[in-house]
């Protein structure tokens, strides 16, 4: 089964694919780094963001009022159609962080009181209970994008996924890197613009408008696409 959806790689002075034929049954949802260390105001980056009140207020405001509700909607639709929901976590395997790139470990320590930082056994790495199920694939990573430090590419192929819908945190870091690599590896990659958040509105919009071999769509677009093709 295949459907044609509007695609369009929106790049000034570059190439453009107006329509794309996809098999909707081979769509998977990639939920990036939606974990307590990024979603709770008193945990993980929330502690560092206290020093940056403008960033903190924007980030948690959008996360709580727009992004998390849309991620809930997306997960519900994917489950209803028996499509895969895959979670990634920023989760280091070693408590002293020696499995993390040195520059990134140093970055984690700056302005983030308390330790361990995003160690795989810490509360910062726990997923939100209502979102994830034990039967979902969970991929831990020590990089911004999930492809560089995990076998995600192989797992997506094993799961039969051709279309990757990416949602989560932060738009211009982990989400964009995931979408860029997915697109570059040949997946039809869709970033969901109202299901992710950056530290500022400018960074979010710049990221969503700099689509490389991926495109930005809305939560409603993804839901309508799946319900339209697979039955509401």
């Amino acid at each position, binding site marked *: 089964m295949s459907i044609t959806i509007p695609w369009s*790689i929106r*790049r*000034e*002075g*570059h*190439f*453009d*694919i107006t329509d*794309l034929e996809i098999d909707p049954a081979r769509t998977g949802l990639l939920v990036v780094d939606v974990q307590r260390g990024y979603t709770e105001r008193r945990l993980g*980056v929330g502690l*560092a*963001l206290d*020093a*940056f009140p403008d*960033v903190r207020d924007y980030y948690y405001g959008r996360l709580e009022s727009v992004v998390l509700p849309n991620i809930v909607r997306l997960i519900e639709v994917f489950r209803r159609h028996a499509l895969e929901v895959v979670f990634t976590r920023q989760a280091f395997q070693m408590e002293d962080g020696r499995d993390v*790139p*040195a*520059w*990134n470990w*140093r*970055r*984690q320590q*700056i*302005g*983030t009181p308390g330790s361990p930082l995003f160690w795989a056994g810490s509360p910062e790495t726990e997923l939100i209970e209502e979102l994830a199920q034990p039967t979902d694939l969970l991929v831990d990573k020590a*990089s*911004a*994008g999930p*492809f*560089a*430090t995990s076998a995600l590419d192989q797992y997506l192929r094993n799961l039969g996924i051709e279309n990757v819908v990416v949602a989560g945190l*932060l738009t*211009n*870091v982990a989400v*964009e*890197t995931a979408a*860029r*690599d997915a*697109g*570059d*590896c*040949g997946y*039809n990659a869709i970033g969901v613009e109202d299901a992710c958040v950056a*530290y500022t509105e*400018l*960074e979010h919009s*710049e*990221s969503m*408008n*700099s689509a*490389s*071999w991926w495109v930005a769509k809305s939560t409603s677009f993804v839901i309508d696409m799946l319900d339209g093709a697979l039955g509401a």
Partner: protein
Amino acid sequence: MRGTIAWQTDSTWPHSVPELEIDLDHTALLVVDMQNPDHYGEVTDNCEKLIGFFRDQGMENIFVRVGYFLEDRRDMHPKRAQAWLRSGDGTGKTMLKGHENQAIIDRLTPTGSEMVIDKNSTSAFNSTGLEQYLHARQIETLYVCGMATNHCVDNTARGAADRGYNVVMVNDACWDPSERLHEATMRAFRRALGTVKDTAELLTELDGIVSPGATAQGDAQ
């Protein structure tokens, strides 16, 4: 030879790492997709300066080239193959390996002892043995220049940062058809994934590591 360089100097931003120690014996310049025809103006000038400096210092220059290996482009992923058919002269063959447009532009031509790696993807890590080469050469820090900023340069730089390299994007040695997209890449990169410097700034900084006290000696004379 070790030295400290300024890193994420924006102290108004969460998690900024102000400076970083690097080792020039484990540092390389990565020149991304600077291929014919050359219409990149000052960006080419700056790439030439960088390549010359790294070459003079006995540091590694690595060139990557984008293109494809089969005439019908089926070695690329389908969307890429489809979009590229519409580019260039309409034959879809202008970036075939061996075509003059797949060659590095004359002014930046690598020496016989500089590595050239061909890719058919956007990120140089997604279709080549670049990572193996960087491991073999024990590279830890990469200065990245080339085109297009928001496309192959961005994807390659993200790929390098994700694999643990210290990545410096060279702002005025990267080119994009869109100034807006160029700025977007630099803003995201300098805040989260690495740092961004201009050519003159980084050459002065590296000179200070290569020739410590050179300025002071000059004053004494």
